[in-house]
């Protein structure tokens, strides 16, 4: 397990720029998938507007480190601010919705994703409208300038590993057990004295924070953000990462992200059919393998037990 990041790093040292960029995006999507998985896989709720939190993170970096307002805060600080803002948005959105039945969350987040895009498009004074924000600062972290896709690969390997450890330990914690209880039977969970609304709210906010984190990295990587990057299709792709990879299994997110990022690259000639294929894949996977390619049981804890046992 610990070999995987090392293997990716070794690969990163030898690959040319174009595959490196793809690898960067695989890791970024794996990270987003792990974040969304907290809501979809652990809590069993559907969030169709995850891209909103990603957008909040990206615009946080774009606004606080660009000539737009002539602010140039350090990257590490914005990583914190971006995820905090996304978490705050998650809490504010979650309060009215999470008291209710789970399916309300799906439609409200769907709407929220769209609303954020409308705001980004129209708040010209703040976000520069549809033109987006360009000439975003180069990210520097502890004196290390992130210039090339290779630098970002190192950063992303680090961040994704941290997020991986975090979501794994979250799943195994008392909080993770509470989430599983809410997912399996909300009434029984309440009977056990679990504050179901509170648990769902924390899960939602944590997931949003990881989305915001991903957004900051995305903005630093592209050094340009515009509302176009944050459509519903982006949310759907991240949902697919979770569903394809395996609901509730962080390993699955790496596989799901790999498939979701590589497939469109390989099928460039059929770009018109991409979303159609996404739709068909979603239906087929849910019907044939509702838990995704990696089942929940075969998560990190299972592997750890295997390794110790062997």
């Amino acid at each position, binding site marked *: 397990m610990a070999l995987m990041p090392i293997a990716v790093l070794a690969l990163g040292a030898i690959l040319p720029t174009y595959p490196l960029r793809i690898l960067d995006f695989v890791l970024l999507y794996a990270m987003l998938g792990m974040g969304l998985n907290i809501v*979809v896989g652990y809590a*069993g*709720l*559907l969030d*169709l507007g995850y891209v909103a939190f990603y957008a909040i993170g990206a615009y946080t970096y774009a606004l606080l480190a660009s000539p737009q307002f002539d602010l140039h805060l350090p990257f590490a600080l914005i990583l914190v601010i971006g995820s905090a803002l996304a978490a705050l948005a998650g809490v504010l959105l979650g*309060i*009215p*919705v999470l*008291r*209710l*039945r*789970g*399916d*309300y969350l*799906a*439609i*409200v987040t*769907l*709407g*929220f994703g*769209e*609303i954020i895009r*409308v*705001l980004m*498009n*129209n708040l010209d004074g703040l976000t520069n409208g549809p033109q987006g924000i360009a000439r975003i600062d180069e990210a520097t972290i502890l004196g290390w300038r992130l210039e090339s896709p290779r630098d970002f690969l190192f950063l992303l390997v680090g961040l994704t590993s941290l997020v991986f450890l975090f979501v794994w330990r979250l799943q195994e914690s008392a909080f993770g057990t509470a989430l599983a209880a809410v*997912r399996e039977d*909300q*009434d029984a969970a*309440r009977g056990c004295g679990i504050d*179901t*609304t509170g648990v769902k709210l924390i899960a939602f906010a944590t997931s949003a924070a990881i989305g915001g984190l991903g957004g900051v990295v995305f903005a630093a990587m592209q050094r340009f953000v515009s509302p176009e990057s944050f459509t*519903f299709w982006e949310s*759907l792709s991240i*949902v697919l990462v979770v*569903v394809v990879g395996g*609901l509730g299994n962080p390993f699955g997110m790496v596989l799901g992200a790999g498939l979701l990022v590589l497939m469109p690259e390989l099928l460039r000639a059929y770009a*018109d*059919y991409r*979303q*159609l294929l*996404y*739709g*068909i*894949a*979603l*239906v087929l996977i*849910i*019907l044939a393998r*509702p838990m995704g390619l990696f089942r929940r049981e075969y998560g990190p804890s299972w592997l750890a037990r295997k390794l110790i046992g062997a």
Partner: protein
Amino acid sequence: MATILQQIINALTVGAIYALIALGYTMVYGVLRLINFAHSEMFTAGAFVAVAAAGVLGGIAGHPGIALLAGLIAFVAIGLLGVSVELVAYRPLRNSSRLAPMLSALGMAVVIQNVVMLVGGRRPLIYPSFLPRGVIQVAGAIITYKQITILVVALVLMVGLELLISRTSLGVKIRAVAESAETASLVGINPNLPIALIFFIGPGLGAVAGILYASYYGVATFSMGFIIGMKAFTAAILGGIGSIPGAVLGGLLLGFIETFATAWMPTLTHGVIGTQYRDIFAFSVLVLILLFRPSGLLGENVSEEAMVYKRDF
């Protein structure tokens, strides 16, 4: 005064269309306790199928009967599409978690939207009007025949639906399954038929709404269902999801809120909040209802507490 009357007419027209779509959401929710994510695409597909049907029949301009027939074809075709969505995305998953059917229905929505895009084209389609031309003036307000027809069609369909649900034996079965599928099957009602019927009527009404909407605005795009679906769902929640009169009330109310907010907000806020935020009004309404009265105006209780007593199937 004339402007207010004009706004009322406009609000009623838009509201009637929202109400027609909201009926589809609320009926599926009433029976399955699930949101039909594919419903918004029925609206779009209906508008496109009707144009194609009219083209085959020899063009819309020829005879008003062709418009009617094309509308009927769209109703039946989209109704069957709805039934097939139920067969593929809902029926096999009836006993699984609540997450699974939502995802499969979402997949179906994506498939339908992309088929419409690939067949109908990416660019907005200049939509031929299925509705009669002409205007009448009442107290300074201009009422188009289009608006009158939309209101009449919506009213006829709603009354028809109400009669079907309240007066026929099929309606009794639908209500029985909505109350409790398990109990209904104990008294010999096979829940599959009422559920299939719901998935026929709802999308059919959605298709008609699509034709009315596209004729009213003169344009149809493959992605137009997204926002309209959102608004119709808001209308269904506003009226109380699961309630048929609620969907109609919610649709009309949302039409009014949206029309008047769009008309007055720019003046009230001195241009800070402009008409480009029209879509945000509906969403704010949704969040506010969920915050203060999640059961809507005429609906059942949907809070967590209620779930203890009323289990879903």
